[in-house]
């Protein structure tokens, strides 16, 4: 019998903002330990998928399953408590709270030893430990992204959803961000990665879905999509 290693299974969800259809009959899945990329232009529906998983946007149809449990109608509070973490575009750090306080807020539902988690995050991002009492609003874009990812890791999530983590960052910092993402995969995290930087995403993703105006146009392994002429034409400057 084939074992289902799906951490996340989305089947035929559609999300409307008023009368405007943001995503239509979207189905995708993520298996344990995978990086699954969602690529496409701005407004294609990538963030909406993540927000639907988190329960911030409600799907009007279809179902979302996480670790075999139906979370389609679950509250965001319970979804986060069950192990899904979302890092929004821009990071979503709270500017008038310190780095430490932002990290602590990432563990609201965490039942284990908070200090141990903090230690692990500081080991991964030593600069956060050095500046833990600094207000998050005084950090650079790349540093805020680091705080956002660190905060996401505080609850030892079973699914990490990263929304445009490289947006607005310089090339060197972008490279650093993607190195962190690969590192997290090696550490066993399952990652859903939404990005406009198609090339870098397809280079590191195991599988990916290509979005266009709310629909999934193509899907396949990262390699397959990198070699796909349609993808090359539309997203890779080929």
């Amino acid at each position, binding site marked *: 019998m084939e074992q289902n290693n799906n951490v996340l299974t989305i089947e035929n969800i559609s999300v409307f903002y008023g009368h405007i259809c943001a995503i239509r009959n979207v189905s995708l899945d993520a298996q344990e330990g995978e990086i699954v990329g969602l690529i496409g232009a701005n407004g294609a529906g990538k963030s909406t998928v993540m927000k639907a998983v*988190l329960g*911030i946007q409600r799907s009007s149809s279809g179902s979302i399953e996480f670790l075999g449990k139906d979370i389609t109608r679950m*509250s*965001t*509070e319970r*979804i*986060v*408590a069950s192990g899904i973490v*979302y890092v*929004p575009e821009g990071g*979503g*750090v*709270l*500017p*008038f*709270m310190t780095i430490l*306080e932002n990290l*602590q*807020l*990432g563990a*609201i*539902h965490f039942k284990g030893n908070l200090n141990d988690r903090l230690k692990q995050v500081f080991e991964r991002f030593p600069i956060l430990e050095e500046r833990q009492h600094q207000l998050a609003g005084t950090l650079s874009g790349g540093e805020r992204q680091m705080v956002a990812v660190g*905060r996401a890791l505080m609850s030892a999530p079973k699914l990490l959803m990263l929304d445009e983590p490289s947006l607005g960052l310089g090339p060197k910092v972008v490279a650093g961000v993607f190195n962190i993402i690969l590192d997290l995969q090696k550490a066993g995290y399952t990652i859903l990665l939404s990005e406009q930087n198609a090339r870098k995403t397809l280079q590191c993703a195991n599988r990916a879905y290509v979005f266009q105006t709310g629909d999934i146009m193509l899907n396949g392994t990262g390699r397959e999509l990198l070699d796909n002429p349609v993808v090359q034409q539309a997203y890779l400057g080929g």
Partner: protein
Amino acid sequence: MEVFIAQLISGIKLGSLYAVVVICYNLLILVTGILHLGYASLLVLSMYAAWFVLNATNNNLILGISAGIVSGIVIGTVTAPLFLPFIKRRAILEALVISLALGIISGDVMSHWFNLGLPIAFPSSLQMEGTTVASIIIVFAFLYFLNRTKRGRILRAVAQDTEVARILGISVTKTAIFSFALAGLLGGLTAILFAMSTGTASSILGDSLVIKALAVLFLASIGNLRGGLICALILGVVESLAMGYLPGDWTNAIAFSVVVVILLFKPEGLFGEQH
């Protein structure tokens, strides 16, 4: 000089009570976005609750004080759901009307149903020194709670950004209800301190208190915790000096004259930031 010092001490005592009241207004503004115009009247309702229990128990201070505090928590928690639909829709004006209605209704209930509408008097055994110290302790305890505890961090997160708070798995609704309950608890404590300090209460005390609170809020900049505390003390001292040197009750006029003058030169309030 003696008059000045006596009024100054009295002003600090008064200002410290205002400080706790203003903290509650700012707490609700920051977490829910609501300027709760009825809050002061509900605080006075807690004073009446304490008075009832004191009368019923032959002036048992422990029971009377407990009744004041518990009634504050109950009132805060029970009235919170009235505001929730408006908080969710960010309908601040409608929420303002609800808060005003609560204040008017509770004021009318106190003036028509309780003690034939006459002012109530607290037993002399309740009137004791130490309200300034108690107020300071309450303020510091609240600030410690806000800045050093998990629940306090959650309140601050919701106050800063409700969307990010939701993403972190914080229930904004539950946090809003908690903030009303906390404001109720602080209100209950303040009700007892007012009872200890003034020895009396009436149905119109809420109207007077809300005016003072608004003066402080606008003077400091609405939502500014630190500014609210400082301006509450300033108002208390200015009021007390006015009572000592001027005939008649000019306190409200003086309070708002100061507000107008400051706002003419600094529209964002003394501690606000220019936009």
